[in-house]
Each structure stands twice: as C-alpha cells, then as structure tokens.
C-alpha cells in the first residue's frame, strides 16, 4: 500500500493523555502523526474540518473472538487483538501469520498466540516462533490453565520473550458447567451456577505465579469485587499485572439474564449488582487498565437455544465506544482515561506504536461526535450477528471518520 497523502484535521478537540480535550489540529504525514496542537496545515495538505468533534486515537480492542471489519469500523476500532480461540486454535506460527495478515488493508489484526497447544492447558505452544510470525502476546483462551506447573513455565518463558500472558481467570473446578453466577437469579431460574469466588481463586493463583516469575500478566476480564481487590493489592506491591473488562460487566448485573435471555449469557457470567459497582470503582481508581469489546458475534444457531445450551458472548465492537462514553458522562472517568482504557493501555500491552495522539506514532485516528444519539438495534448491526444485550438501548457517541495508518477508512 502506498503511503497516504499528508493531511491536517483542524477545528477539533484533541483527546490527549491527560486533561480535558483541547482545541487544536493534528497533522498526519507518511502514515504517522507529524504534529498536533496549535498548528496550521502544511502547504499541499488536504484539510479536514472536524467541526468541533473529538480527534481521538483509534480504538485498540484487546481480545476479540472474530475479525468483523464492518463492526470494528463502525466502532472506531483500528486494531483488534484476536483471541487464539479460532478453529483451529492459533497455536501454530503459520496460523498466526495468516491471522496477522487477515485485516489488510484497512484493519490491524494482532493475533494473540495460544499459550498451549490446542488451548488445552497442557503443553506450551511454540511461543517464540509465533512471536516471529506476528503474535505480540499470548493468551490462555476462553479457559484458565488449571495446572499451576504449566502456568509457571508459561509465565517464565513468555516473560523471557517479553510477551504478556493474557489469562481467563475462572477456576474450572468451581465453574464446571456453570452458566451463571451463584445467587438469587440463578437459583430462581434453576441454572447451573458457580460462586463468584471462582474468579478470585484463579486470579490469586495467577497473580502469585506472576509475582514469582516476574513476568507480565493480563487478566482479560476481572468482574468481581474480590478479584479486583487482589489486583489492586498486587499492583500496590509492584506486581506486573493488568486487568481488563468488557462493557457488559460494568453496564449489567445478572438481573439481565431474567427470562433466560441468551444475549446476556457471558463468560464469565454476569455478576451481582455489588460486583458491578466494584467494577465501576475499579475503572475509576485505575485498577482496571483496559476496556475491550470481547466481540463474539453469534447467530441464532448459537443463541436461540435454551440458556444452558447457548454459547456465551456478545457482539460488542459497535457499542464499545458509546458504552464507555457513558462512564464519562456519569463522571466515573474522564475523557483522557476513557481513551487510555480503550487505546493507550491496550497498545502498550501489545507493544505497538499507536493508541495515543503523539507525534511519531501511527496515525490511527478517529473523529468522534461524543454526544450524537443513536439506538442499538440488534436487527441492523454492522456486526456479522446481532447478539447484543443492549438491544433498543439509546446510547450516545458515534465515529464520524476513521483513519488507519493515515489512510481514511470511514467517512
């Protein structure tokens, strides 16, 4: 792909690492951010009038289960870290290489290599060769690695290679065949359930091993008060642990599974209201580092089933930005932190030179009207399936233009 022509976006509000969005302009040249702030377009630049919209970094979606470009572009996502839970699993360098190319030319795909062969949690996969092929981090997939010896070897090895290990913190012995969090709702519905502590148990073990090995650990979804307390304490001790969450767990409690709504079936399952409040507090105080979509589009063959037989997951890419902007409007976080959670922090985990508005970084840029209202409609999603628990919900915030590496892909 040829280098896109230079351009300047002006009359916008720049979303910077700190502080409120600031009036200014941003110049892109050679696919990278050349300058920003109180600047003028260079001669010959194409000039884009932002008309007061936010000029923000493109979103870096850390942990999606599918590559679904229309949904990503709708949601302002320029980079997707693809989970290794593909068919077959991304546990081989050739598959990683193929996946890494699969977004071209208008989406960066960063495959997360499978930590173990076939994601079985037993034998380590060829991490170094997968890194060569484009895997920027490794992930345990949808499941936890139960064997502590394997987990220690994994973290030591990945640590040596400088790769973050992304873990799914849910103790399989406790969670078993559960599809809901133990509590009143699961009891009333008669659904197999596991105590919320399944997450804290797994997080505690993983954190202990991270501490022992000195390697970097990212818990992809931390959704309970007790596990968040463990992460908070570990960070205070200097353990290299980070935590993520998806909007479902800060927007919804397990009340949403009433009437057996399979669109609200998640992994880990939705929690009680007190846990949802704990997630909000952890977003506010910095315990949580990443908000990701967990994008997992599922058609009726996976979702129009009895609750226990349905697949977990939601199509989240389109609503990721708008639901995170809810947190800004509610005063939980400010705009700078919203984009740290959506772009800068996940970019840092992957080690890519993107995710914020800084001169020299890749020009992945989104123009966003943060107040524009729209209504989520599961029948008319850009995603390949409309499995969202936020159907019919009014939200605010739309991407009006998107650039990837300086090339315009939306708007």
């Amino acid at each position: 792909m040829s280098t896109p022509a230079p351009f300047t976006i002006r009359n916008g509000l720049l979303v910077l690492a700190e502080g409120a969005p600031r009036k200014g302009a941003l110049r892109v040249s050679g696919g990278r951010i050349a300058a920003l702030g109180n600047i003028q377009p260079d001669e010959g630049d194409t000039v884009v009038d932002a008309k007061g919209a936010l000029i923000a970094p493109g979103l870096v979606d850390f942990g999606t289960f599918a590559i679904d470009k229309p949904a990503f572009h709708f949601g302002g996502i320029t980079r997707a870290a693809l989970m290794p839970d593909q068919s077959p699993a991304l546990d081989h360098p050739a598959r990683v290489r193929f996946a890494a190319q699969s977004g071209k030319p208008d989406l960066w795909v960063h495959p997360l290599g499978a930590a173990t062969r076939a994601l079985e949690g037993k034998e380590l996969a060829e991490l170094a060769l997968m890194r060569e092929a484009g895997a920027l981090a490794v992930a345990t997939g949808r499941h936890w690695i139960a064997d502590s010896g394997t987990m220690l070897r994994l973290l030591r090895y990945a640590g040596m290679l400088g790769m973050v290990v992304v873990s799914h913190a849910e103790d399989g012995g406790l969670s078993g065949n559960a599809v809901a969090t133990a509590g009143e709702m699961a009891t009333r519905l008669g659904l197999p359930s596991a105590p919320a502590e399944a997450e804290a148990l797994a997080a505690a073990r993983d954190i202990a091993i991270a501490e022992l090995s000195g390697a970097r650990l990212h818990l992809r979804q931390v959704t309970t008060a007790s596990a968040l307390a463990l992460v908070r304490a570990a960070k205070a001790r200097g353990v290299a642990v980070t935590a993520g969450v998806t909007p479902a767990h800060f927007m919804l409690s397990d009340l949403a599974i009433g009437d057996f709504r399979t669109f609200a079936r998640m992994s880990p399952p939705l929690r009680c209201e007190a846990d949802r409040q704990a997630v909000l507090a952890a977003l506010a105080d910095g315990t949580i580092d990443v908000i990701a979509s967990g994008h997992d589009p599922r058609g009726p063959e996976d979702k129009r089933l009895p609750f226990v037989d349905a697949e977990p997951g939601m199509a989240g890419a389109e609503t990721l930005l708008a639901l995170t902007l809810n947190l800004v409007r509610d005063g939980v976080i400010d705009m700078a932190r919203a984009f740290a959670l959506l772009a800068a922090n996940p970019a840092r985990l992957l080690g890519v030179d993107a995710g914020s508005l800084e001169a020299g970084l890749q020009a992945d840029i989104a123009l966003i009207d943060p107040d524009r209202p729209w209504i989520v409609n599961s029948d008319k999603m850009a995603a390949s399936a409309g499995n969202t628990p936020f159907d019919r919900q009014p939200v605010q915030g739309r991407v009006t233009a998107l650039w990837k590496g300086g090339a315009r892909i939306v708007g």
Partner: protein
Amino acid sequence: MSKALSSMTSAKPSHLSRYPAGSAAFPHRNLLGIAGLESHEIEFLLDEAEQWVELNRQPQKRDDRLAGLTIINAFFENSTRTRLSFEIAGKRLGADVVNMNAAQSSVKKGETLIDTAVTLNAMRADAIVIRHASSGAVSLIAGKVDCPVVNAGDGQHEHPTQALLDALTLRQAKGSIAGLRVTICGDLLHSRVARSNMLCLTALGAEVRVCAPPALMPEGIEAMKVAPFHDFDAALAGADVVMMLRLQQERMEGQFVPSPREFRHLYGLTLDRLGKANSDAVVMHPGPMNRGIEIDSNVADIAGRSLITRQVEMGVAIRMACLDVLTRCHRRAEGWSA
C-alpha cells in the same frame, strides 16, 4: 347466562367472588411456572380442579369439552408418570392426545429446538405440553408457537403442575395451606419441583423450610422466602408437612454427597425422624421414590399420613383443570373470548 356458567355458580357459590370474572381469573396464555402467578390465580386453578377430582372417581370419567382439540405431549426428556398423567387428563376431557417422545426423535438428528417448535406449531396443536432437560427451554418454545404451552418440567427451573397438585393434595388433607409449616428436604439444587413448590406454598401462605446438605442447597434461596436448614431434625420440629425429594443423580456432575447410605443417615425420612414433626404431619413425595434412601418404606406407606398416591391422583385433576382453563379463549368459552 349459559348452562355451564349457571351450573358452576350453583355448585360453588364462593367460587365467583374469590377472583375476577371470566378470563381475568387466569389471564395467562401459558402455564410456564408458578413465578408470575398471583395467589388468587393459583387458587382458581385449584378450585377448577376440584370438579375433576370428583369426575375422576366416577365410573364414567368423560367430559367432552375439549373434543376436537389436539394436544401434543412433547417430552424431550424421559418421563413416565407425568406424561401419562397429562395424557389421561387430555383424553378424559375428550381431546385427541398425541405423544412425541423427542428423546429419540429428530432432535437427536440435530434439529434445533426452535425448528421442532415451529414444526409442532404447523401441525396446529391446540395445546402443547412440554418437558425439557434445559431450564428455560419451555418458555423458548412458547415464544414460537401460537397455542397455549404447559410446562411439564424444564431443567432445574419449574414444574408448575407438580406444585399445583401438591397444593391441591395438601388443601384437601389439611383444609387450608395458609399457616402450615412445610419442610422440603432433599436435592434442592437440582429440583424443579422444589422451586415451584417454594413459590406456590409461600404464595398460599405456608411457612416453608428447606433442608439439604450445603452442596445441594442453592445459593440465595432465602430470597425465595424460605428458611434454609442443614439439620433435618431441626427442620422437622413442628412441621405439618414433610415433602421429600430424591437425589437427582442424572443431573449431578461430580460428587455431591459421599454415598446414598450417608445421605440416608443425615436426610433419610425414617419413622423415627418423622416423630420429630407434628404428630399429625403428613408425608409427600413427587416420585419416583428411592425407598431406603430419602424415604423409608414404612414411612412412604404409612396409612393416613402418606399422601403420595393421593398426589398422583390429584395430578390428573390439576392437569385437566390446566388444559381446560388454558384452552378456554381458543374455545371461546363464555367470558373467555380473547
């Protein structure tokens, strides 16, 4: 006033005053669970069932009000007694009843539940009775068909006709349910019968105690307005009704109790243990029983106090009442035209 309505009025003068007239007495298209029913709606179904208790004791057990209607019993999970009970209920009301034993049908060939539901709907059933191994499966089907659906047990969720027949049995034995102390003991975790009974009995004013070892006690059960116990003897103190549940081994993944023998030691209803309850306490069990595990034979068969066979009898009457009431709009019964 139609003949049917006037005869109903004369037979039970109190009947009409206790709940709203016509279809307002039971304004539900389906019977998916006890959750969502008002107590007067439950009582309406119980009152409706009384006439069928009487009919079922006659040599000529026939009423033709459902003549020409087709009822499909779609059982996606094995069942003998419930399916038979529904079949008899439908036939005694004159309906054409067909059984679909889906445990060995196209469901095994990969057809989705929704497709099966659409197929049943296309055959123009007038009511569908469904049992399924997954919680919520019956309401899923109910959303896809045009006729009333009766839940005959969905996973670990609800089994409403069982709770209704238990309530009818109790009301007949004790006169009233309000104020009774009912102890439900056994595998509460896996029991849809327990869930429906907790909802039904508390709605009708009973004091409900539930008893199980921790592994079989659902979390948050206090929210269902019942008092949880681990000690069976303590749970039995002052009980008017003891309802036993079997261990549902088929739903267990992993070991929930060390052994049936050990379960009996702590939670088996022996004659000795029954002595801890009130002297006139009655014994119930939804069946099938595991004699010698959760209930001893000399308790299950205790004359005058065991209501277990009475429960089976009431089951047919309750199911007749449900099929009658749920098809009234469709049959354009007086006051019930939708």
